[in-house]
């Protein structure tokens, strides 16, 4: 990015200046909102994470303690590090499941069938319900596990050839399969609206050339909605991590109001949690980042060549000028 900025050090023209002004105008209200209600609180919470905060009758008492909160969490807390690792693995496993499931459902719902609206409704609604207190009741009723899926058998199979902590999170994912799928409503919607935007004539052309539906899926559908797959994967990570039924959120919340830990400790936890989340998103993005197609590659190559040529020309000119100078000097001295 910084490289780009360096190359772009050209003075803006009138039109560009106007455009830039409008850009700021459009983004300003949003930016103020984010600044006041997100950025400033975030910075504050980072400060708090480096301090020990006590509520006293005379107000807040803040003492700076450096990295103590962080080291205390890693060395002394018995729950948080374990939970963080299992959260990391579980999320990495459940993201592909949700995204693929959502894509399949969206493809099916995009077909021409009767009662499509009703189907769509049913697939979306669990998201709303799951986000409320109803979820607890449902888990209590045992509706979130598939009884026929024998989790025990999977567990013992996994335990044989995987280390224990990985096997545990895999079996956890299997155990919560139903819940995981219930979270996929929004992703289905996003995929549906992306699928709707694909031009039908593309498929028609492919059909004329004798392409099967299978080929159409891999050659047309998938490349077109690639960016949406990334969007969905990122959204899935965020939605599952920031959900209130996530156990880590509960830990943070409890620590916030616990007498012996306090707000600074909870802030440090939250910061480490978001670092873990960022890592996951980084991994997802690495896997899914849109690779350029052949045409883009060629264009890039041509551009690169041109830059190289320009540089060569410049160098030749510079050398020529220098040589000119030398020759002149030599002539003058003679």
């Amino acid at each position, binding site marked *: 990015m910084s490289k780009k900025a360096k190359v772009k050090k050209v003075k803006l023209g009138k039109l560009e200046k106007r455009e830039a002004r409008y850009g700021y105008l459009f983004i300003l209200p949003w930016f103020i909102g984010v600044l006041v209600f997100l950025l400033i609180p975030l910075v504050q*919470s980072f400060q708090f994470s480096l301090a020990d905060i006590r509520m006293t009758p005379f107000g807040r008492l803040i003492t700076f303690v450096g990295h103590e909160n962080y080291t205390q969490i890693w060395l002394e807390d018995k729950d948080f590090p374990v939970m963080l690792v299992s959260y990391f693995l579980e999320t990495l496993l459940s993201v592909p499941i949700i995204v693929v499931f959502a894509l399949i459902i969206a493809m099916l719902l995009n077909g021409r069938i009767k009662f499509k*609206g009703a189907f769509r409704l049913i697939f979306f609604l669990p998201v709303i319900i799951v986000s409320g207190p109803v979820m607890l009741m449902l888990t209590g009723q045992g509706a979130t596990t598939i009884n026929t899926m024998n989790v025990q058998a999977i567990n013992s199979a996994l335990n044989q050839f995987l280390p224990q902590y990985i096997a545990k999170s895999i079996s956890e994912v299997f155990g919560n399969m139903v819940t995981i799928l219930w979270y996929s409503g929004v992703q289905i919607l996003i995929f549906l609206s992306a699928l709707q935007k694909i031009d039908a004539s593309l498929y028609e052309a492919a059909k004329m050339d004798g392409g099967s539906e299978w080929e159409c899926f891999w050659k047309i559908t998938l490349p077109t909605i690639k960016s949406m797959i990334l969007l969905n994967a990122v959204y899935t990570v965020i939605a599952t991590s920031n959900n209130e039924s996530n156990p880590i959120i509960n830990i943070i919340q409890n620590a916030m109001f616990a007498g012996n830990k306090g707000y600074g400790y909870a802030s440090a936890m939250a910061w480490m949690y978001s670092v873990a989340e960022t890592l996951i998103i980084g991994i997802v993005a690495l896997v899914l980042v849109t690779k350029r197609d052949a045409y883009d590659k060629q264009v890039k190559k041509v551009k690169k060549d041109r830059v190289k040529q320009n540089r060569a020309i410049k160098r030749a000119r510079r050398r020529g000028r220098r040589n000119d100078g030398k020759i002149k000097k030599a002539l003058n001295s003679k």
Partner: protein
Amino acid sequence: MAYKGNRINPRKFEKGQLKIVLAILPLVLFMGLPIIFIFSHAFKPMEELFAYPPKFFVSNPTLDNFSKLFKASRMAGIPMSRYVFNSILVTGIVVIGSIILSTAAGFALSKLKFKGKFVLMEINQGALMFVAVAVMIPRYLTINFLGITNTYLAHILPWLATPVALFLIKQFIDQVPDSLIEAAYIDGAGDFKVYTKIILPMIKPAIATAAILIFQQVWVDLGTSNYYVNDEGIKTLAFYMNTLANANNTVAGQGMAAAASLIMFLPNLIMFILLQKSIMNTMAHSGIK
């Protein structure tokens, strides 16, 4: 692609649909579970709510839970309609406001050129990752500093700039072809006109999705009522339902909680049914591709 026209449902049942329906039906049953549950749970009489082993379906439906809920609300000092009004007001303003903010910001980030654009994008990406719990107390300090505790603004302002909505909308605006916008510029349209006449109509499905998302988040949110507002008269319906169900968290509370969750759920249902039409069939308006 034999079917032409822009209605969502084909008018007749065709043989070709059969395989899709067969694939979908079992999944529908499975995804429908929570919906069935929430309805049947609300109508369960007392003995069935506590039956062991728990029952999934109701066998003797009653309206008992609802009448108890309304009785309890009548005894409270503030009528329930007040909470309903608060919730509708807050949610309405937040949905409309944050859609306007995030489409405008998304348009600027995606299509306009200005300095600092990349930094802003990174900021949004970073803000996405952060859990709401962590900024709760600093946010309270900010709200306190602004002097808007105990007002409607305390409900509304923290929700207005939603990073998730911006992220979603920006991805969709990226897909609007530049040539369309350039054509509009050549015809003499300003940026504002491009925004209202081209961007907004073309990303209708994204707007609908974001609206549903924000609505659902704000509608069930307890945080603002819990932390930023003391005055009972301006707390939201979600908070009220929660206290009703929790205050007498004994045997009677369970039935009321079940009824309350059904009542909280219905607006979501209506909202979705209203908006889902605009998620589909936008190709008809989009002009070129």
